[in-house]
């Protein structure tokens, strides 16, 4: 028991040290985020930071507050306590909880992107695949139809959707295709940080593998940082550099991905890891 606590301590210290070092050129930082739903806790006192190009995994069972946290730090949900900082392209540090809504929206559609678990929430279902990919381009000023269409076609290819489907609506696509389309729609303007909430949640296993593979390659290739929420440890093992483990709205463990997965310190993390191994 004593040894266990000691280990936990040293781990925390290690973690803190690393944080101090990273602060110089961090991309994104959230400190002491709390969000309540009436009497219920959504998430409590969560801090995290992300370096450029880094992938952070957030794991925990259903209801542990992962989605709440993600929506808070993306700026979709108003936080009750805490601050959220982005080191923007011009190296100015912006606090999401202080900036105006126009400014926040501008950031959300340039520096950031958000992939929803359910592609229906992230796509315009009544607009063609090409239009879905083109929207962000047009939003930042692209005005050449031919070019927009070409870029959309290239991205369809990248996410392995047949280019002949460019004028079809997402409602005619399979779940996996819809999710790949949502990814393309988000990445087309090359954001610096992408948030993903269970991006493979609703899909069957073979489709999941394909999408994870695709995500890994794209994120690496484009050097995009990502926050990926999942209840599936296999997903973080594949994608994440670092992870945080959540339970009942609290972060109970944080660290390098392999470190936490191979040598979990907290009882709950141990349980999570062992339950995966059992499967």
């Amino acid at each position, binding site marked *: 028991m004593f040894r266990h606590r000691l280990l936990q301590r040293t781990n925390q210290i290690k973690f803190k040290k690393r944080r101090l070092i990273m602060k110089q050129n961090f991309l994104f930082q959230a400190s002491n985020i709390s969000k309540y739903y009436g009497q219920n806790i959504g998430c409590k006192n969560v801090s995290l930071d992300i370096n450029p190009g880094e992938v952070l995994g957030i794991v925990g069972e259903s209801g542990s507050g992962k989605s709440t946290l993600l929506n808070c730090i993306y700026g979709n949900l108003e936080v009750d306590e805490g601050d959220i900082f982005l080191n923007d392209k011009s190296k100015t540090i912006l606090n999401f909880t202080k900036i105006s809504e126009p400014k926040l929206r501008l950031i959300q559609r340039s520096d950031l992107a958000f992939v929803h678990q359910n592609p229906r929430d992230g796509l315009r279902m009544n607009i063609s695949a090409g239009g879905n990919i083109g*929207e962000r381009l047009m939003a*930042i000023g692209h005005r050449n139809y031919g070019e927009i269409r070409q870029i959309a076609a290239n991205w369809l290819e990248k996410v392995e959707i047949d280019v002949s489907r460019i004028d079809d609506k997402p409602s005619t696509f399979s779940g996996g295709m819809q999710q790949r389309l949502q990814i393309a729609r988000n990445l087309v303007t090359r954001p610096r940080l992408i948030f993903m909430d269970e991006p493979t949640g609703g899909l069957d296993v073979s489709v999941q593998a394909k999408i994870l593979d695709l995500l890994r390659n794209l994120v690496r290739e484009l050097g995009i940082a990502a926050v990926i929420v999942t209840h599936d440890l296999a997903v973080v093992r594949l994608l994440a550099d670092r992870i945080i483990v959540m339970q009942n709205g609290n972060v109970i463990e944080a660290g390098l991905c392999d470190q936490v997965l191979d040598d979990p310190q907290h009882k709950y993390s141990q349980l999570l890891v062992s339950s995966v191994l059992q499967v």
Partner: protein
Amino acid sequence: MNEMSKNENLDIQIYNFAYLDENTKRMIRRALLKALCIPGYQVPFSSREMPMPYGWGTGGIQVTSACLIPKDILKVIDQGADDTTNAVSIRKFFQKTANVAVTEKTSDASLIQTRHRIPETKLKEKQILVYQVPIPEPLRFLEPRETETRKMHALSEYGLMYVKLYEDIAKHGHIETAYAYPVKTNGNYVTDPSPIPKFDNPKMNNSPAIQLFGAGREQRIYAIPPYTNVKSLDFEDYPFEAMKANFKCSICGSSDSYLDEIIVSDDGKRSYICSDTDYCKEQTKLNSKKED
């Protein structure tokens, strides 16, 4: 004095000049000044209940009422014509309540209230064109929520607007909007030109006249000051194209004015005539002079 004119005098006595009271006019003029300062921006104003139904030009009527002075010469058109029922009704209203001079001649008018058209005769400095606007929000059919669309304007989040144009081209090879074709005013706000045919859009650009837009039910006023850049939205490789029926007016022979199609026989034979009745008349006069 006959019954009719007695009543008309009575009305003038009961109501203020041009119907609205001076406080209301002041409120509208403030909105108009603000609108002129921020071209294309929709200024909320406290629209009043008018004695005509919402949707029948109450916004335009309130703007006209706030602008009208006794020496004005008023022209009212609907669908380009002075003799359509709604134009007649609105003109009568101002004759009754403001006793101003009226005209059908575009060039004689100091204030023109219109629904769905811009006159063919080029407008001049010191003329005011008042548009009746049903839905002032060009983004309304893409996003029904006012709270959202106001934000979209504030952030110039016009991606969705272009998505619509993109979809049209992808589907039909053309931008599908034929009227109320959205424009960008002064390089800034996307603006609804009211339901004029897109043939009229180029007339809005760099016009010497003041263009005022009133939407009564939606409680919005916006404006385009004289000599303002007004650009119809398009793509570089699919440029905006003004469009009309490719015929000549069967009355005046004009081929450059916007034409109405009329069905002239039981077997569906079509004929085309100018939608702008004043322009057609002027052209006819010119033709007969030439012949003389």
